């Protein structure tokens, strides 16, 4: 399959490899070099990409997934002409615009107007084209009143809006997008997705680097999975994202190691000594299979007496979204009276219906009330991994039943509800 790609192929990558040389010791100055004239510079080699081949058809949204360091961004940078591949061929069709980062070339000391022009030229427009599209760019970003303001006076949200707007107006047929959609607030992300959808509908070819499997399932026709620079899987988005979840969360690295975090935080009023998770029979561990009962635990040393303190746990997912928040207040109403110097173990047990993934645990103890007077707070005290092989794309996978009911009468027979046609209880 060497040589020119077929007519309907927008991206062709054929046997691409990339190795980085990482100097073992940095000899940055001439003096260092002249002191060691005979010493050869020794390099560690990092095989970032090894013999990767794939094709993307025109009009496809193609996901590139993999863990950090799997070579996704290297592949993207080779395609964007930032890195030179060591071996293999890459072919593109149509104008390509790389979005490795939003707002490349932005200068805080210049006005929005100047920055839009620079950014658009960097992304491939001519200065004339950039000037022509300028007004629709600021209009799209909803920043018409602020165009003569220096960029440093923009909020970060405004800067992102401006940068994203430029990206939309660059008019590329082939977009390389590297996780840029992960920035901004929820409303902005929604706008990003809307734009992505409309670009897809216009028939643009999009390569999307991400490790968010819900994005892959929502937007991508096909995807490939990279593992340590090797092509591990390629196929339809659902299959590849399932494979990703299997690879990364079925057997986590620290699955066997009992997990607990020893907190070294000296609160004045109380101190969280340990945070850990355990299974139904009290075994500690960081990996919790989906669908099994488990408990979040903390041990606390009180330094002051407290009456009915509120114990709380928060779980955040990798995108820092709060997924679960539980407090003793809601559960029982009263937790008891504790003396200074007393040690307490508190825990919250629940059936683990979280989506497979990694979560960070925050533990907190507060004085009685609404929880506003904090005694001690152990933020992101540790992380737990929910293992499972069946990602839904949601934040939680609660047990559920699925119904398909026929509501219009079928010809020749009476209306007949069919309940439950499909039932799923998860696990």
């Amino acid at each position, binding site marked *: 399959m060497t040589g020119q790609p077929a007519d309907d192929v927008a991206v062709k990558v054929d046997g691409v490899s990339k190795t980085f040389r990482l100097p073992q010791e940095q000899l940055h100055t001439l003096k260092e070099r002249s002191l060691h004239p005979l010493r050869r510079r020794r390099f560690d080699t990092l095989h970032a990409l090894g013999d990767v081949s794939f094709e993307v058809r025109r009009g496809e949204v193609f996901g590139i997934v993999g863990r950090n360091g799997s070579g996704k961004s290297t592949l993207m940078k080779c395609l964007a002409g930032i890195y030179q591949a060591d071996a293999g*061929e890459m072919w593109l069709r149509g104008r390509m615009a*790389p979005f490795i980062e939003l707002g*490349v070339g932005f200068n805080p000391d210049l006005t929005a107007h100047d920055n839009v022009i620079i950014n658009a030229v960097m992304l491939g427009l001519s200065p004339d084209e950039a000037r022509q599209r300028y007004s629709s760019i600021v209009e799209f970003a909803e920043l018409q009143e602020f165009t003569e303001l220096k960029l440093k006076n923009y909020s970060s949200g405004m800067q992102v809006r401006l940068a994203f707007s430029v990206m939309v107006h660059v008019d590329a047929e082939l977009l390389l997008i590297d996780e840029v959609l992960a920035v901004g607030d929820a409303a902005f992300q929604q706008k990003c997705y809307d734009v992505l959808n409309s670009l897809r509908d216009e028939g643009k070819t999009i390569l999307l680097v991400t490790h968010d499997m819900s994005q892959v399932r929502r937007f991508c026709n096909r995807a490939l999975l990279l593992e340590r620079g090797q092509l591990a899987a390629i196929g339809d988005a659902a299959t590849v994202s399932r494979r990703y979840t299997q690879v990364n969360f079925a057997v986590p690295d620290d699955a066997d190691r009992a997990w607990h975090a020893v907190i070294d935080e000296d609160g004045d009023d109380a101190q969280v000594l340990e945070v850990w998770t355990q299974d139904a029979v009290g075994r500690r561990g960081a990996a919790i299979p989906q669908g099994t009962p488990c408990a979040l635990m903390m041990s606390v040393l009180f330094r002051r007496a407290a009456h009915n303190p509120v114990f709380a746990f928060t779980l955040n997912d990798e995108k820092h979204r709060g997924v679960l928040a539980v407090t003793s207040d809601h559960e029982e109403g009263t937790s008891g009276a504790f003396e200074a110097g007393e040690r307490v173990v508190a825990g919250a047990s629940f059936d683990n219906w979280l989506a497979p993934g990694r979560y960070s645990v925050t533990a907190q103890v507060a004085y009685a009330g609404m929880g506003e007077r904090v005694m001690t707070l152990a933020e992101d005290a540790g992380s737990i991994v929910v293992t499972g092989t069946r990602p839904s794309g949601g934040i939680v996978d609660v047990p559920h039943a699925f119904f398909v009911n026929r509501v219009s009468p079928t010809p020749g027979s009476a209306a007949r509800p069919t309940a439950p046609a499909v039932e799923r209880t998860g696990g």
Partner: protein
Amino acid sequence: MNAPSAPAYRVRGPSAGGDDARRFWNLARTLAATDWKVRFYDSVLGYVWTLLRPLLLFGIVYFVFSQVIKAGAGVEYYGVLLLLGMIMYFFFSEVTGGGVTSMIDRESLLRKVGFPRAVVPLSVALVAAMNLALNLIVLAIFVIGAGVPARWEWLLLGLPLALLLVFSTGVAMLLSALYVPYRDVRPIWEVVLQALFYATPILYPIELLAAHSPTLAKIALMNPVAALIQEARHLLVGAPSLTDALGSTALVAGPVAILIGVTWLGFWVFDRMAPRVAEEL
């Protein structure tokens, strides 16, 4: 799928010059324009300073060296020659001095967008060229003020200036490429620029040096910057031409060879470094 299929093209990775001359030029002038704007932001008089500053500076130098010190006694239009030499040397110093760190300064661009790498040092040269043009306007005021008779040779002044631009850019490319792995290039070059300023007949006329030691004068003119300044002085007010100052046509080959050699070396080294610069920054 309904759009006509554009031709496929092969991604060849980053290079010094790229294969799209228009994009190269668009990028270089946009980066240069940006730098230029940032420089004069927040000043009340803004662009007026670009003319006023050299006017005041040159006025002081002109007064001190031609009225107080009288360094060029006996040399016709010494003040104007002094200013021309300074303007050209400052241009060389701005391009090469700014060029050294240019690749590191533009690190974020180089690591995030694929574009011809030589755009970066060239944009530095363009900014300096804009400065040079403004300084030449100021120089014209002094030339008229000094009563230099108009000469048709003025039309040729662009030639040494263009050669100076090429040479300076070549040196800047060499230094910017070397600076990525060797950070001591910058302090070394600062010293070299300082030394070269005094080794170039700018403050003192070449005649003064020649009267002292003809050999030293010839060595000084082997420096392409000194040679180009001498030639520009000749065109501007009829000072001795490079050939006259060196005393023989054959010796002109010296600075010419150095100019071509160093420029070529700069382009070659930069071209070799360009494909991998993004990963070595």
